[in-house]
């Protein structure tokens, strides 16, 4: 480094350090601009992911149905689920339906896993409690009204079947058997007592079922025959979901995966709108902060017209004055960009924690982008006033006053 370069650095540093209050004013403007830019960038990229999990309150967006006559078995289900990545899966609930009689009225039992059902149907309103295990039931509001069931009641669900050679009757008490007086065939009225812990209200067809645990259905119907339908809630956009569904359909012979179009189609349309809202807001705010930075830099440069005149009087060429001032401006832009990236991350994190109660995804690529944008904007904001300032006649600036 020769003496000339050393002096250059010495002047730039002196200008930045000794004119501290002015530089802080300019730096503040740049930092605020860069903070808003990087914060909104982070939010923009994270909104679909964060909102997508909010949209999961609509419940399942993919359903598995048996593709042949056989029901879905646990191994097949798990194979199907594994086609999703683990952070996409919000939850899945297998359903097994059986017809039963309660108070001699027909009703439908739905066997579910009580622990996971709220993941796929978060909108369920339960007056009372969710059943916690075997021997308990959740009753849909319409069935409850129809059959006169209230919370706290104990109801008996009955499975009537004809006893054949294959029936394993070892666990069935003797009093449940009876034979048809005419044909002499042996029948069984196997029953299960269920304590009603809660009534389910959804405003939809879910109110028409009685929900029990899968284990209760196995013991009442003496077999674990698999599932009729599986509801899956996955945090992914429509394109990704249909891609996974296709993979499952081509790989599995027993499962047919279908998108719940009503949920997926609407979700992607709303999410796109939301993201473009954040995008355009970012763009508008960005344009305005850029102009703010530009006006601040213009003010800072205009203030130094006299100094520029003096430098010219000392024999400085326009190009060397531009180089010095631009170097200062670019340094400010760089420092502002770095500070802005850090603050922007905290800003985005603050927004994310407050709105979504989850932390924002850190995207390292946005740091160089923010710094580059900050340097570029500050550079441009300096270049224009400097160009006009070096055109001044030094004699005019230095004269009198």
């Amino acid at each position, binding site marked *: 480094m020769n003496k000339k370069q050393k002096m250059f650095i010495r002047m730039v540093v002196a200008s930045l350090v000794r004119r501290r209050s002015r530089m802080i004013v300019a730096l503040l403007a740049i930092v605020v601009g860069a903070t808003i830019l990087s914060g909104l960038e982070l939010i923009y990229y994270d909104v679909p992911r964060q909102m997508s999990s909010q949209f999961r309150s609509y419940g399942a967006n993919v359903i598995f149905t048996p593709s042949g006559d056989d029901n879905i078995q646990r191994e097949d289900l798990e194979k199907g689920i594994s086609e999703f990545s683990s952070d996409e899966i919000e939850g899945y609930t297998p359903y097994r339906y059986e017809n039963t009689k309660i108070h001699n009225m027909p009703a439908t039992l739905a066997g579910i896993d009580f622990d996971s059902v709220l993941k796929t149907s978060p909108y369920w309103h339960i007056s009372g409690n969710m059943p916690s295990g075997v021997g308990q039931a959740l009753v849909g509001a319409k069935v409850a009204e129809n059959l006169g069931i209230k919370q706290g009641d104990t109801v008996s669900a009955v499975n009537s079947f004809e006893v054949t050679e294959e029936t394993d009757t070892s666990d069935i008490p003797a009093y449940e058997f009876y034979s048809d007086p005419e044909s002499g065939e042996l029948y069984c009225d196997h029953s299960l007592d269920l304590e009603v812990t809660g009534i389910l209200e959804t405003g939809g067809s879910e109110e028409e079922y009685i929900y029990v645990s899968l284990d209760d259905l196995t013991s009442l119907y003496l077999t674990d025959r698999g599932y009729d339908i599986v509801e899956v809630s996955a945090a992914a956009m429509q394109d990704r979901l249909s891609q996974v569904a296709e993979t499952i359909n081509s790989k599995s012979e027993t499962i047919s995966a279908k998108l719940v179009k009503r949920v997926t189609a609407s979700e992607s349309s709303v999410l796109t709108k939301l993201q473009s809202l954040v995008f355009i807001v970012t763009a508008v705010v960005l344009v305005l902060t850029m102009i703010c930075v530009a006006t601040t830099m213009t003010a800072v440069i205009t203030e130094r017209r006299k100094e520029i005149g003096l430098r010219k009087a000392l*024999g400085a060429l326009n190009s060397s004055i531009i180089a010095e001032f631009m170097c200062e401006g670019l340094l400010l832009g760089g420092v502002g960009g770095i500070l802005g990236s850090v603050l922007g991350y905290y800003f985005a994190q603050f927004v994310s924690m407050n709105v979504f109660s989850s932390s924002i995804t850190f995207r390292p690529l946005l740091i160089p982008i923010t710094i580059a944008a900050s340097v570029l904007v500050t550079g441009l904001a300096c270049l224009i006033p400097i160009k006009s300032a070096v055109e001044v006649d030094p*004699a005019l600036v230095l004269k009198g006053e």
Partner: protein
Amino acid sequence: MSKLLELKNISKIYGDLHALDNVSLDVDKGEWIAIMGPSGSGKSTMMNIIGCMDKPTSGQVIFDGKDISKESRRKLTEFHRDKIGLVFQQFHLINYLNAVENVMVAQYYHSMPDEKEALAALERVGLKDRAKHLPSQLSGGEQQRVCIARALINSPELILADEPTGNLDEKNENIVLDIFRQLHKEGTSLVVVTHDPEVGEVAQRIVRLEHGKIVSDKKNESFSD
């Protein structure tokens, strides 16, 4: 003695105003001239033209035997940088640079900054111990001496001073004038623009301007080295 500077029939016209009206002036090498006159007499315009910071509307400026009145701005800047040192009434120091750095700025734009040389120049004006002070920490007289040191640093052929004592008290005025005397002895040409008779009286030759015209141009009888 050879001529350093010749102004031939110089006019400078701003609209209707004839700031300089057909003025001719020769400056010999090593000469100390005071240009005097009331405000509005054309002193500043003349100084700007001599200092290569402005061009005349008509007439020739010959510096060191070279006609510079038709040169481009860039050439003028280079010429002025090499030949002339400027001293201002308002000092015009860069307020975020300390004394020695202010001197080095002139070196920086001229050739190559050298802190030792700059300190030597400050020593010449008696400010060696104030080299690291910022302009705001210096008195008016000290600031003006820094300004002179800056004008000297590139060994110009001509020192051009515009009301160099206008903002100074008597004590500091004398210090500055002593420095001028010293420079004159060393053979530097000096052009001092002033309206202050005391400052004019110490010069070798006094030129009076009124309404853009030279009204008198005579040797100073009382001049003593």
